[in-house]
């Protein structure tokens, strides 16, 4: 695989092996150990639209491994504003770096960049398309809590129409035989073609508007933000969004090991009262972005992660 554009670029075995690498890199991600596996390598961060966690965690991942980072900076002051094509931007950055992490508002931009580049592209989100590095950190978080990925019951809730994180994650979970429950308002349902694709791949999918009625038997509840601007008026938004909020009181009767995840930022879909419960994993999930991206950077740059890190061997 040259880069990581969609989760289809990885086999299940590759996913598990990258998650194993990530597991071993945890002490490096936490700063407890310095392991300059990527010394001398340069990551190009090309974020054509705003990003906090993805951009920063890529940068942290590269630096924890001894590598360096160059940034596109603010799009408004770059040559993009002068009308430079993505093709030309990629030609330039391709010459400056060893690997590129990219987010772009247009769907398909990451594949386009990969076709234009010699270095690997890591897709950090393309329009409403894919966000596979987020999926890898999500899978890492799920496996960290449940010890496995297969056969889990996962509720994905909120904005399933525009949320690219849930699109990539649904495909990946289907490949591990998970049961999926899509809980969303009618307006923000999972796109039909994705539900059909998942069905064609043997997914067990249920669609509902009832979030609270779905979480009792779930192993994972994956929340997403419902954006006000998707609705015609504020009253309609308030009515719909209210049904997709979790409070600590809603979690009574849930499975002991159920975890709540969120790609962040949250607004008010997860009440702060949930933060202190054993179910809350979203901040852990955000940290895992560093370790998952460290493992991906090593894999795409063909740098082997040692079997023993900080051990006696």
């Amino acid at each position, binding site marked *: 695989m040259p880069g990581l554009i969609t989760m289809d670029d990885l086999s299940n075995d590759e996913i598990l092996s990258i998650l194993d690498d990530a597991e071993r890199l945890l002490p490096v991600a936490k700063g407890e150990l310095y392991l300059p596996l990527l010394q001398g390598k340069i990551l190009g961060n090309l974020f054509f639209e705003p990003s906090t966690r993805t951009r920063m965690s890529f940068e942290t991942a590269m630096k924890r491994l001894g590598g360096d980072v160059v940034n596109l900076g603010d799009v408004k002051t770059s040559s993009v504003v002068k009308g430079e094509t993505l093709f030309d931007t990629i030609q330039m950055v391709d010459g400056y770096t060893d690997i590129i992490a990219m987010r772009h508002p*247009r769907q398909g931009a990451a594949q386009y960049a990969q076709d234009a580049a010699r270095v690997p592209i890591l897709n950090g989100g393309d329009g409403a398309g894919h966000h596979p590095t987020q999926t890898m950190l999500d899978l890492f978080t799920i496996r960290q809590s449940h010890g496995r990925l297969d056969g889990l019951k996962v509720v994905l809730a909120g904005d399933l129409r525009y949320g690219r994180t849930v699109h990539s994650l649904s495909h990946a979970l289907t490949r591990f035989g998970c049961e999926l429950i899509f809980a969303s308002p009618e307006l923000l349902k999972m796109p039909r073609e994705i539900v059909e694709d998942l069905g064609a791949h043997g997914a067990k999918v249920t669609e509902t508007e009832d979030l609270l009625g779905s979480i009792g038997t779930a192993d994972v509840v994956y929340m997403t933000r419902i954006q006000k601007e998707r609705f015609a008026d504020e009253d309609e938004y308030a009515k719909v969004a209210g049904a997709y909020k979790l409070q600590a009181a809603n979690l009574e009767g849930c499975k002991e090991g159920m975890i709540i995840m969120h790609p962040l930022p949250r607004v008010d879909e997860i009440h702060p009262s949930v933060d202190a419960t054993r179910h809350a994993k979203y901040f852990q999930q955000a940290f895992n972005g560093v370790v998952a991206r460290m493992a991906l950077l090593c894999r795409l740059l063909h740098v082997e992660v040692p079997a023993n890190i900080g051990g006696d061997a």
Partner: protein
Amino acid sequence: MSQEHNMRRVTAIQNGTVIDHIPAGQAMRVLEMLGLDKGTSVPVSLVMNVPSMKMGTKDIIKVEDRELNQAELNRLALVAPDAHVAIIRAYSVAEKLTIELGDEIVNVVRCTFSNCITINPREPLAHRLRVLSRVPLDLRCHYCGRPQDPDELVANVI
């Protein structure tokens, strides 16, 4: 009504290309996709909605003094995948060609999704659609992955 009668609705051509078994009503689109709807000086004849044993009704196009090549014909895969094509020389069929859809359609049509990266006409890479299934026709943009509606695609011919 016989096949022979259909072919004689317009005069036999001495040299050129005959495209037969075009789905009824698609002849104008075929001319458009071949760039024969404007800016051409060769004589073009078309008959529409004539009876067909195989298809019920069909359209036929005859292009004089021009032999269409395989690459041009493959552009028709979206609207007339089962069309029969004959190259005519001295009033006889010199060659028979079939339209091939292939695994990918390159630089024939643009993706129909309004937020695809290929929407910027200045981006230089080829427009590419992957053929996932022939029957029913399932085409996806190589870049954005969106499924394509064949009816909308015809408006996006390059």
